[in-house]
């Protein structure tokens, strides 16, 4: 009896999730192709933010150079498409592997520091990656970037990703897969240990956890998620250029995580949707949209430093207990 009552909520949640996925998928057919395209942008940055969140929200490591792994993934997938194979799976595997390898190399360097120095070294590593993307013309195309990257072949009959609606399904599935995987990770003993490290790394070490290794693994996994986002990005846009690797993207992703709510699973999605929506829609109405974006940064830090999800959650709990 007890088991059934325990299972019920998770069954309901599962059913809800499936229904929500189906509804979101159906949306692709209903919306105009431009709106669907914006949703794809939102999903891509959601995945990137989700990956950063593992570092920032779970482990408490404030990375300011996450666009680097995103860019490495996108460039790798693009290069595979241009020179090797149009298979989605080859491109994605190579991209994620390269992102994680770069994440591992940078992680080795960055984890020698902590706190504010960690912030600065990740920023500097990000800028170095930008400089490489800009200067290594024979590989990356320099400032012009790589272009002419077609839509990939998934080898799945019935799914045509050449259309925006079709690609939306791919992006949605990719984001859902990332979310499910991240959900597994944060609920696993590994994820629990990351939270422990965030709250009290000295105690974690005294208990017997290899804190450095956890941080390193989190760094590498997080880079892998960023690479996955890069894959979805580059196949959708058909090009990649150094701008996608720069500090502005890194800062925006960090903002997305914080706006939504660092350390929550929905937060990065909410944050990504909000920021992408802001920069594309508000800029259609006013030239001063950068001011609006800047004010968003300021206001979030002032009024919701733990993010909207946490803010709403707290308010909800406060009302219930009142």
């Amino acid at each position, binding site marked *: 009896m007890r088991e059934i009552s325990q299972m019920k909520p998770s069954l309901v949640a599962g059913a809800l999730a499936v229904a929500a996925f189906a509804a979101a998928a159906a949306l692709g057919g209903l919306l105009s192709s431009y709106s669907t395209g914006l949703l794809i942008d939102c999903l891509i940055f959601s995945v990137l933010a989700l990956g950063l969140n593992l570092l920032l929200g779970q482990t408490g490591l404030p990375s300011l150079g996450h666009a680097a792994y995103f860019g490495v993934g996108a460039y790798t997938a693009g290069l595979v498409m241009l020179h090797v194979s149009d298979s989605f799976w080859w491109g994605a595997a190579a991209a994620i592997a390269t992102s994680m390898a770069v994440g591992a190399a940078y992680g080795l360097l960055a984890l020698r520091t902590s706190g504010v*120095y960690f912030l600065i070294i990740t920023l500097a590593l990000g800028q170095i990656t930008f400089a490489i993307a800009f200067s290594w013309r024979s590989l990356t195309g320099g400032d012009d970037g790589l272009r002419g990257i077609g839509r990939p072949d998934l080898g799945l009959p019935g799914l045509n990703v050449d259309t925006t609606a079709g690609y939306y399904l791919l992006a949605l599935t990719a984001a859902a897969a990332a979310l499910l995987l991240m959900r597994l990770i944060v609920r696993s003993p590994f994820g629990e240990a990351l939270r422990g490290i965030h709250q009290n790394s000295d105690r974690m070490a005294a208990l017997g956890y290899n804190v450095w290794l956890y941080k390193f693994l989190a760094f590498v996994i997080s880079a892998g998620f960023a690479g996955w986002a890069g894959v979805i990005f580059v196949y959708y846009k058909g090009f990649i250029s150094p701008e996608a690797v720069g500090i502005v993207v890194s800062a925006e992703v960090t903002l997305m995580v914080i706006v939504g709510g660092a350390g929550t699973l929905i937060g990065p999605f909410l944050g990504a949707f909000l920021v992408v929506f802001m920069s594309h829609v508000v800029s259609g109405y006013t030239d001063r949209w950068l001011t609006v974006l800047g004010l968003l940064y300021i206001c979030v*830090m002032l009024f919701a430093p733990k993010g909207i999800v946490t803010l709403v959650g707290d308010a909800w709990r406060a009302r219930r207990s009142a």
Partner: protein
Amino acid sequence: MAFYTIQILNGLSLAMLLFLIASGLSVIFGLMRIINLAHGSFYLLGGYFGLSVLNQTGNFWLAILVAAAIVAAIGMVLQRVLLERVHGNELGQVLMSFGVLLVISDLALWFWGGLPQTLDRPDFLDGALRFAGLFFPKYRVALIVCGFAVALAIWLIIERTRIGAVIRAGVDDAEMVRAIGFDIKMVFLLVFGAGAALAGAAGVLGGAMLGIYPGADFEVVLQAFAVVVIGGLGSLRGAFVGSLLIGFSDTIGKALLPEFAMFTIFVPMVAMLVIRPEGLFGRA
């Protein structure tokens, strides 16, 4: 030989400009633990306010004074109204100050336009000095002298005055200063204002050397951060030595290895963080 003499002078002039910006950034960090990306906005605003004053009055010195004063006031308001509220939250400070940077650069674009501007320097500093067959701009010589003078002045203030003693104590332990009965918040405010004023003045001085234009804020703050990181966050001596190192590595690196010019700032920065995260003169 001539080549290296000129490059060293180039390096020195860039270093002194960087020092004016980085010294404030570093002391502010040491005292308040604030990571202030908007420090670059102080430079930008200083340049633009200086330009406006210069266009009205034609007086370069007045431009420096007014720009420094206005930017100091803006800085103090910023510190009181915004940055203090996120005290202790490093990432929060970075993102908030990034937001401030965005707002200020956008408003500056709106107000002063997107056209790159140059500030006219005083007539007697125009032209070049000639010695031993070498050419070197007078203005840069003046900037080098000015940089050393300011460095000396800051050093004297911090080492030899009462307020300097309080600042030094505050860098060590802000709580202790409070316990002795000093209004630490006032000290914070004044130091922040002074740092902003220096950056504002640097905007005028730098504007007359490099021009002032949208995007200058971000360029400058990244370089200043490299200086501060290499010298050690919170250390004035570190800011001075770091400025010299970055000034030289940037100039001489670009002169000798132009194809790696994009890496002359960030690679030394990462190397320093990996080898000695607290910088040359910082404390762990």
